[in-house]
């Protein structure tokens, strides 16, 4: 344990209290994050489905029409995904200031790339959506498909950047090994996280589309190749099969987590969530067996069950994070307190020291010494030269230093020194003349 901790950087925290109670922040983080990730799921899953269905549409036009309908939802979901992401970002910044920003910096290039990558992906989705009816044949259709594929590939890549950060922030003991974004991928369990997330994206998109396209009032004028029950069944099936796969991917994620945060509590929460997930799956498969007339009647029950499962997983994730970082957080707190106690003591002693009412001319002259040396030209002319120009005229020096002019073309501009005050400048000027004369006499 100690050997491990020795390699863990323990920074000092910012000396400001949290603006709201911690429990409130935790609550906001868990809830806002789930809302955010839901829209991200729909955006990512939707764009993958669109690519596949458009490709199927080459053989049978009805898939093309379905893909087009889904493409309309992506552009809305993507905007919500972005705007709903800001809240959880605020919360995580506050709760895990030291770990989160550090992970960002260690993967800095990729972190910055989020901005242009997401912009490109969004522009491509718009292009894909708004050229659907005009790029319809031959090479143009291929170009259209390529646009969709490019957008989907970007959407498949961008989550990796976030996952790398979420993963890295949990393992400060490994930070020293990280040299750039790609090396951060090999630490912890980024890949299982990624698979779990991608599967969730497909499942959630299936569930969403079963409800959205299958809803009573939905407009079927562009979807004449399908019936409503058919669509419901199709998207339910996607949701059910992928969710089944989560029973492999989920444990894979759980058992590859770094052990530091695994507690009984985490297991209890996650396994309760998983059993609820089994129940959900059972209801879902039951729904699939229904005849056309009643398929979809359990939709809201399934949504509710899924929400509970997701909430459970989200809480489990938070409990794990807290446990994984507990030691690091305590160390940071101790170090911060130690530092600020020492600082307060120092400042108290400092304030108690008799204040030097006035600075001596020698001290004041330090403000000029960086540029004016006795004999040599540093930045400005040497003191000998100044003493020559201003012999017997210290006020001239004061006037100059308050608002320096531009005399010597080969030298830079001298900065104004007016903030030192007239009285101080006068002392400096007198000393300057003495020093200059002395240097010249040598």
């Amino acid at each position: 344990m100690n050997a491990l901790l020795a390699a863990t950087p323990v920074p000092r925290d910012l000396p400001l209290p949290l603006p709201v109670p911690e429990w409130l922040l935790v609550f906001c983080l868990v809830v806002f994050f789930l809302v955010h990730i839901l829209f991200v799921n729909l955006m990512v899953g939707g764009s993958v489905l669109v690519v596949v269905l458009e490709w199927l549409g080459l053989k049978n036009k009805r898939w093309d029409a379905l893909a087009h309908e889904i493409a309309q939802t992506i552009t809305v979901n993507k905007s919500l995904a972005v705007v709903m992401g800001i809240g959880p970002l605020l919360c995580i910044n506050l709760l895990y200031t030291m770990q989160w920003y550090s992970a960002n910096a260690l993967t800095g290039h990729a972190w910055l790339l989020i901005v242009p990558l997401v912009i490109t992906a969004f522009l491509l989705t718009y292009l894909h959506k708004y050229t659907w009816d005009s790029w319809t044949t031959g090479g143009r259709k291929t170009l259209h498909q390529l646009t969709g594929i490019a957008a989907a590939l970007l959407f498949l890549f961008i989550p990796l950047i976030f996952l790398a950060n979420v993963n890295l922030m949990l393992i400060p003991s490994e930070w020293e090994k990280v040299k750039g974004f790609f090396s951060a991928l090999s630490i912890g369990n980024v890949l299982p996280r990624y698979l779990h997330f991608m599967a969730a994206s497909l499942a959630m998109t299936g569930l969403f589309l079963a409800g959205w396209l299958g809803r009573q009032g939905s407009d079927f004028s562009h979807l004449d190749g399908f019936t409503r029950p058919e669509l419901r069944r199709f998207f339910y099936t996607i949701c059910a099969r992928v969710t089944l796969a989560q029973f492999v991917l989920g444990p894979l994620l759980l058992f590859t987590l770094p052990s530091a945060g695994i507690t009984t509590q985490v297991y209890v929460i996650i396994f309760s969530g998983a059993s609820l997930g089994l129940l959900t799956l059972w209801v879902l498969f039951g729904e699939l067996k229904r005849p056309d007339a009643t398929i979809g009647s359990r939709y809201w029950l399934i949504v509710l069950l899924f929400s509970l499962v997701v909430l459970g997983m989200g809480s489990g994730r938070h409990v794990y994070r807290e446990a994984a970082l507990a030691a690091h957080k305590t160390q940071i707190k101790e170090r911060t307190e130690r530092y600020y106690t020492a600082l307060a003591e120092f400042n108290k002693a400092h304030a108690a020291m008799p204040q030097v009412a006035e600075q001596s001319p020698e001290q004041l002259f330090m403000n000029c010494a960086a540029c004016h040396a006795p004999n040599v030209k540093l930045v400005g002319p040497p003191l000998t030269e100044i003493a020559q120009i201003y012999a017997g005229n210290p006020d001239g020096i004061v006037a100059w230093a308050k608002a320096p002019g531009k005399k010597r073309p080969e030298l830079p501009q001298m900065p104004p020194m007016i903030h030192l005050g007239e009285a101080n400048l006068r002392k400096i000027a007198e000393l300057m003349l003495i020093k200059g004369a002395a240097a010249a006499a040598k």
Partner: protein
Amino acid sequence: MDFPSFYMDHLAGGRLIIGLIASLHVLINHPLAVGAYPLLTWMEWWAHKNNRPDIDRLAYRITFIVFIVTTTVGALTGVGIWLSTSLFAPFAIGSLLRVFFWGWFAEWLVFISEVVLIMWWFLTWKKADTPEKKKKHIRIGVALSIMSWLTMALIVAVLGFMMKPGVWNQTRAFIDAMTNPLYAPQLGFRTFFALMTAAVFIWFTAFFFTKKSSSGDDRPWRLRRWIVYRMSHVVLISMLGVFLFGTWYWNCVPETMKANSSVALLTQEFMSWHGQFQSLLGWTVATFVVIALGGLSDIFTVPRWALLIPSVMGIWMLGHFERAREFMRKPWVIGEYMYSNGVHKDELAYLQSEGILKHATYVKHREVTEANKLECGQDVFMLACSRCHSTTGLNSVLDKFTAMYGADKPWDSVGMTLFIKGMHQTRTFMPPFPGNDREAEALVAYIQQLRAKPQTLHGAQTEGISFSPLPKGPAMTAETQPQR
């Protein structure tokens, strides 16, 4: 700063990227969101009232462009400011977040409603086919215009607050931001600036949608005439606002600067900024007037490219405007509380006496010795200078010292050390050096070595981190420090 240092040598440490993203955001947000929404809503309303489907269609087409740009580049550059400052100045953004949490939270809520409203407005435009539905639709546009303006009003408050030193230290109340003497002129200036540039933008894009048809149909031409005439009015009126608020702002800035700073910050650079701002304001306003009058006159003379001139001047002017904030802020990131390099005002004396390396985290050594001098100097550079200077890239220390000591002679190390220790006195926009004498010497040694052998310095995003462990217990002396 106690975070791994993200740093890009060739881009002034990385500061340039924040600047780039932020400028792009403002350039999109002002004309295309804050300014354009109300004007487009007004066009929709006018078309509805006077039964002019051609104007409605034109408004819709321009809204399409606005929609695409604001929901992609506009929204993401907004988030990008956040992401890039998290990298470059986590100490600042982290502290600001703890202090101004509610401001940002409110900003987020307003931003959500703005995004929902723009999607709702644009995506339901074609579906509003009855007068009742149309009226409702126009109301969405009004709500959107209000929300986008509120977003700007809030963020200007947050920014103004950050610059206002002293006050929040005592009161820590958000309302103080609104009482900042620069708040009202700044908000007024931005509002009218947004309207003025939005009018020019709508005017410009309308040209693409009102092309003359070959069949001698003069309706597109009449539509173009209509829009140019109306937008010229908007330009003229908002230009008056820009001029008035700009002048008010220009008059307030020196007062605020004097009042805000313990030292007179009125440096030559600022004076020249101040002079330039005035003439730039004059010239920008003049070009907008000429264009607007051209639009008003019956002889149809203003060509499309001519509209680019005031737009470019507007951009330039806005950039200049934003620079004032930079001036007033330096050397602080949070007025009178934290310097640009993350050092707190009240820990300065402590660090100067104890040394900055001793209390840092991501450094190789904690005590300067003859052997590790260069490595220490590099760490000191990273901690104390790298948020404003690069080593060999833009705004590099090498260039700065070359300007002082010349390119062809050796630099005087003693002079450099003296300069660094007094740099806040010589150059009031720089923070005081936050380390002890040996660290200043190490820094100078590093810079001298850099001069002899210029080498790019890499940040934590490529090099990773290295750190020397902290000695156990409160007493940290060189003897008890374990060697790694």
